[in-house]
């Protein structure tokens, strides 16, 4: 009985993964098409990859997109972590709730509205649109995400840890850097990666604040759609998929290595 159940469970799992991954593989498959459309596979060819690497504008935009994503998520992680610490430290429960709700409202409000308000804000301030405006708006919409990822970790932390550290004579800087931050690390990493992916594929907000020769991948692909998206985009997507696959595998092996080291360390102490 148990075995039968797990068989159904496996089948379910497989179907779900097929649904999730099939479109991506379909897209990658056609990046090798010798024809011009996502139809009628007319032969294997790498010409769309050639087109991609000859398209300096596209490559520049891809790199710009990553720079914005990395910097904005890094800064948002720093600001958001301290924001979470701040909210955690508020004693008045009503105040705390208000702060949390304000954070969540930003998270659920539609991107279009956030984007439009940034556009109006930046033009009111007289700031030119470009790298700076995109970076700032990405930081702004990433902060609530980081707060939301870090806060549960904080709530989960036992207050006795802090008390113990203080008892042993740690000042507040030491408590923060030696106790609280290391404990929060998994939440901080998660927040960083969430913010990173949000920034990478954001279209609506970015569309409003790009300008003066600066553009990101999502905006560029969307503007090319009038003439039909070429298979060059497929080639690019295939490469990005492979890069993320490599990153995930790399992360897995580093994790594995760390776990092993920890185990050996423990064994050594016990033995």
């Amino acid at each position, binding site marked *: 009985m148990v075995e039968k159940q797990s068989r159904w469970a496996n089948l379910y799992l497989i179907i779900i993964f097929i649904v999730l991954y099939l479109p991506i593989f379909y897209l990658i498959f056609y990046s090798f098409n010798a024809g*011009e459309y996502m139809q009628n596979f007319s032969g294997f060819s790498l010409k769309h990859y050639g087109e991609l690497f000859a398209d*300096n504008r596209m490559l520049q935009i891809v790199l710009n997109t990553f720079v914005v994503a990395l910097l904005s998520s890094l800064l948002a992680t720093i600001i958001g972590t301290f924001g979470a610490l701040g909210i955690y430290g508020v004693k008045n429960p009503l105040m705390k709730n208000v702060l949390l709700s304000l954070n969540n409202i930003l998270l659920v409000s539609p991107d279009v509205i956030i984007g439009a308000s940034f556009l109006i804000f930046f033009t009111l301030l007289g700031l030119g649109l470009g790298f700076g405006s995109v970076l700032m708006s990405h930081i702004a919409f990433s902060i609530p995400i980081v707060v939301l990822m870090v806060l549960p970790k904080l709530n989960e932390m036992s207050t006795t840890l802090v008390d113990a550290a203080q008892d042993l004579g740690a000042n507040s800087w030491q408590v923060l850097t030696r106790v609280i*931050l290391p404990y929060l690390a998994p939440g901080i990493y998660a927040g960083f990666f969430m913010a990173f992916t949000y920034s990478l594929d954001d279209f609506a907000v970015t569309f409003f604040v790009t300008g003066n020769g600066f553009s990101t991948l999502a905006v560029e692909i969307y*503007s*090319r759609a009038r003439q039909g998206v070429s298979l060059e985009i497929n080639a690019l997507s295939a490469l990005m998929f492979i890069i993320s696959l490599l990153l995930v595998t790399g992360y897995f092996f580093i994790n594995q290595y760390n776990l092993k080291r920890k185990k050996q360390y423990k064994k050594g102490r016990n033995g």
Partner: protein
Amino acid sequence: MKRLLYAAIAVLIVAGLLALGANHFEKEQSAATGKAGSSTKVLNIYNWGAYIDPNLIAKFEKQTGYKVNYDTFDSNEAMLTKIQQGGTSYDITVPSEYTVQKMKQLGLLHKLDLNKIPTLKYYDKNFLNLAFDPHNQYSVPYFWGTLGITYNDKYVKPEQIQTWNDLWKPEFRDSIMLTDDARDVFGFALISLNKSVNTTNNGDLMAAKGKLDALAPNIKAIAADEIKMYMAQDQAPLAVGYSGDASEMIAENSHLHYVIPKDGTNLWFDNLVIPKNAKHLKAAYAFINFINEPKNAAQNAEYIGYSTPNAAAKKLLPKAITAQTNFYPTDEMMKKFQVYTNLSQAKTEEYNDLYLEFKMVHR
């Protein structure tokens, strides 16, 4: 803490390297022009995605020494919003005819000094001084085209489809694909009734709506860009759409043909304009003149596949292209063509509401 710090430093280093890479590719783009990016002569262009031959930009930079910043948009409305907000200053942008009118009314356009555009002499007179911009005070045409019918000769004989009214023939049951646009769909219905495509007469509109409802059984789908794909794959016998899209479909499938119905059609234009807040007027004029040099205009038209309003450039294009009267119609045919003008807000809503009603009947 140390680890978090290291991670942050690693992120910064990677971001720095990527920024260097991006910088390199930017230089590479201007390296094609033989000039370093240090030049302060700049031109900011805001154009539809993939709507110019990139080699021409490189050539322009090399010839004039201007550095081109090229941004793209995907709809007239999006472009208008960006220009209206300020924040960016573009020197050249490319609105369609009804948006030219709207931008003019909003005071967003720089009044052109036609003495600075000597290349205007290359234009076909038919495409100058049009209703949406009398005397070309604010705009010069970039590309133009028509609304028409694409058919597949596997299913449809050429003599079967000559006028808009032929679409209503019972033998075309469930076989027409329509471009999803209120003005275009109402446009051809109005033409089939011998009315103006810019009518504000409620009776005319209701008549067109009634006529469209009668077309419902013949309609296979109302769609956008995906029509190109379906037609290229023999999935539908007929499609109503723009000449530019048609030329792309025909390149994919030789069974497809494009016809301009005999009873006339709508003529569309994408136009070069200079926004009011442009900072590099000299560069903008230089670019307009450059792109209208017959040789360059011909190269661009061949790359994009749309029809050029430049008579001198048309002469340079291969005969095989310009001899096609469905893409370069004769003067005789042109007499029956109409151009959209901008409608008032209330009328636009009326068009849209009726169109929505029509779509609901169809479903």
